[in-house]
């Protein structure tokens, strides 16, 4: 067995990383097709404030991250519903407020290593507790998306028409926001708060280059994320690089590769 797989902490990192690689693009496809990718950025910054709060108070940081980001996400959903004209501006304000609070809380804490691990991701710090949280949560998210698949699809395609088809728009939007918040909070460990929004969007961009249907988009996006996380973690381990940055750079590389494949395919006239 290659050395990288022999360490318990790496085994945990791979397990958590692969779960994240399943759920981040799964949610990402719906988020991006709804035109809400900015929400991913905003929630990830707010989640960092939750992490800082957890470290400062000695609570396991993923819990306050989930709580704070769900509250922010529900606030965002309310804003999106009521004042859609200024939704982008509201997101920027919430993002700034989240980052501001995170910065202040970080400055009050003396555990800067802990904070750094959530900002940029960390392999060695993935704990048993992380596993216990990430695996069941990821399974729940996958089941929920599967259960409401057509509803989420229709919401992404056209929210107004979805209502007429009997889709419980409000309920599913709230559920979706909660799922995004949980996904982002769980992902902080592996890619870090600053890069999670990229793990949600870049594999989806890759999937979009190759897919011929919505289902294929989900499938290819997940494959791209799995490839990015696994090759990223291995590269980061051997070259002693930050895992978050390595995973994201590799996902950009796979995106470019997919874009080239699409270009060649179109030139050949195969569609």
């Amino acid at each position, binding site marked *: 067995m290659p050395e990288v797989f022999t360490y318990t902490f790496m085994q945990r990192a791979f397990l958590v990383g692969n779960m994240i690689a399943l759920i981040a693009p799964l949610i990402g496809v719906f988020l991006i097709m709804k035109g809400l990718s900015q929400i991913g950025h905003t929630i990830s910054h707010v989640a960092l404030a939750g992490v800082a709060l957890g470290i400062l108070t000695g609570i396991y940081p993923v819990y306050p991250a989930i709580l704070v980001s769900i509250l922010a996400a529900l606030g965002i959903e309310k804003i999106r519903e009521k004042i859609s004209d200024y939704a982008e501006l509201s997101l920027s304000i919430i993002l700034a407020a989240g980052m501001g609070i995170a910065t202040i809380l970080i400055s009050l804490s003396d555990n800067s290593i802990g904070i750094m691990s959530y900002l940029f991701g960390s392999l060695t710090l993935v704990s048993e507790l992380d596993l216990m949280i990430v695996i069941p949560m990821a399974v729940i998210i996958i089941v929920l998306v599967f259960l409401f698949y*057509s509803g989420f699809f*229709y919401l992404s395609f056209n929210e107004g028409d979805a209502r*007429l*088809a*009997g889709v419980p728009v409000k309920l599913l939007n709230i559920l979706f926001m909660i799922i995004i918040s949980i996904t982002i909070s769980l992902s902080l460990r592996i890619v870090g708060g600053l890069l999670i929004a990229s793990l949600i969007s870049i594999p989806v961009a890759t999937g*979009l280059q190759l897919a*011929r*249907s919505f289902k294929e988009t989900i499938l290819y996006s997940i494959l791209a994320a799995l490839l990015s996380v696994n090759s990223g973690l291995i590269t980061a381990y051997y070259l002693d690089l930050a895992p978050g940055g390595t995973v994201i750079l590799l996902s950009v590389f796979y995106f470019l590769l997919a874009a080239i494949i699409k270009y060649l395919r179109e030139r050949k006239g195969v569609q």
Partner: protein
Amino acid sequence: MDRMAEVRNLYFSYGQEPVLNDIKLSVDRGDFIVFIGPNGSGKSTLLKLMIGELKPDRGKIQLLGRDINKFEEWHRIGYMSQQIRNFNRSFPATVKEVVAAALYREMGFIKVLNKRLEKRVDEVLELVGMEDFRDRQIGNLSGGQQQKVFIARTLVKEPELIFLDEPLVGIDLSSQEEFINLLNRLNQDLNITIIMVAHELQLIREAQKIAYFNGGGVLLYNQQDFAAAGYLNKDMLKAGRKPEVEYSSGGDYDA
């Protein structure tokens, strides 16, 4: 006769700008009504009010005998908005996926397509002549083909009443003719009640009743009265002039 929709003493304004004043309109099963009138006369607004997308300032709307605020049987209603084709062209969905989504309510506990519903999707695509395009991405189709897919999506729920907002805009002439034939079949063969906003003469000629919007009010005419008044004339339509006839035997309205 079976009453499909009823609008009573309806008022609506966009901010300070009144758009609809004291509107009354009754729609019976099997009706094919076209809303016409100058731009900004409130045709699309009334359609949006009738599907609950907008809330009236005053007045009542009933759908299938129920107050719109308490109405829940949206699966019996179909709606194609004017913006329907303004969707994201790079959205990666296939024709089948787009049509199937409308069957959400019938999907059971797990919201994915089963064999029975898949068959219904195939049947409705056949009805609109798009069965060979089921696995094609919707963004890659022509305007006329997309419109047929959207009418298929509206029809797959087997609605009894459909609202169409300018369905022929941006569609080439040959597709327009096919589309009009399709609407006639839906209305006459399947007894689907159709209410639509349109500017095209050929569509107005097909309707049984014509609701003319002008200055906040609505006048309803039978096709015969409307034609007899010599109103089926492009220039008059463009000018947005009010028809000469003031009486309609088809309904109970005026503004």
